[in-house]
């Protein structure tokens, strides 16, 4: 049952990432991978939120482990950074990696603080 909850969250999370990613990248033709950036930072914020709000049990498994775990992605993040290095966009690559991690961590803390107030 635990696995099913995580799996269902995973379906929704990956579809949400795909749709949002398409939405952002269709509107913005830039080198910087803004779609994954927005997805990862917002996902970190939301994970902080549900942790701060004290969500537990099956709901946590589905929303946090399943949905938010799948909504955010590390492999695409690294692949995009790697691709930026390959086309010699070193500054963009470093800004992308650094800002994603920094804002992801700050986002989680901010989300946690907001969640505590709920």
């Amino acid at each position: 049952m635990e696995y099913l909850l995580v799996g269902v969250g995973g379906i929704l999370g990956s579809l949400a990432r795909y749709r949002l990613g398409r939405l952002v990248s269709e509107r913005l033709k830039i080198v910087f991978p803004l779609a994954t950036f927005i997805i990862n930072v917002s996902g970190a914020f939301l994970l902080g939120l549900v942790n701060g709000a004290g969500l537990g049990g099956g709901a946590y498994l589905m929303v946090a482990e399943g949905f938010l775990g799948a909504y955010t992605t590390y492999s695409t993040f690294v692949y995009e950074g790697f691709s930026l290095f390959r086309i010699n966009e070193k500054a963009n690559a470093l800004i992308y990696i650094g800002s994603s991690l920094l804002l992801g961590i700050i986002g989680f803390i901010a989300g946690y603080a907001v969640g505590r107030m709920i």
Partner: protein
Amino acid sequence: MRKYLYIGIGGFLGAIFRFSVKNVQLADNIANIPLSTLFVNISGCFFLAFILTAAFSFIKLDADIRLGLSTGLLGAYTTFSTLCKETVQLLENGMYLASFAYISLTVLLGFAAAYAGFVTARVLEDFLARRHAAAFEIKDDADEEAG
């Protein structure tokens, strides 16, 4: 429409694989570094770089299946939000060195794994191309002998 089905199936399996790795806990965390997430993220980086490099060269992968594997399976298998959560937890507990080491290892090994996946796909491509060429040579020789 079919691509949503593949991404959904990939996402379902990817999230479950990640959760399984977390539950199995093969080894105790070393120096407080969350090893299961580290393992998931690094292995995912290898496979994504391998699949995307291979899919655009020697493997004739259907575009929807490619999306299912990359955006679905590996996208859901690896996670960014948990990485942030675990880093904050280490910071909260005053383990500054461990949090720094965790982030650094995740980034450095993730990029190394992506590079390794990329190189593996290229080496395999080269190997298959040579074998293909060799097979043609043998066939040519056989044709000459027959002629």
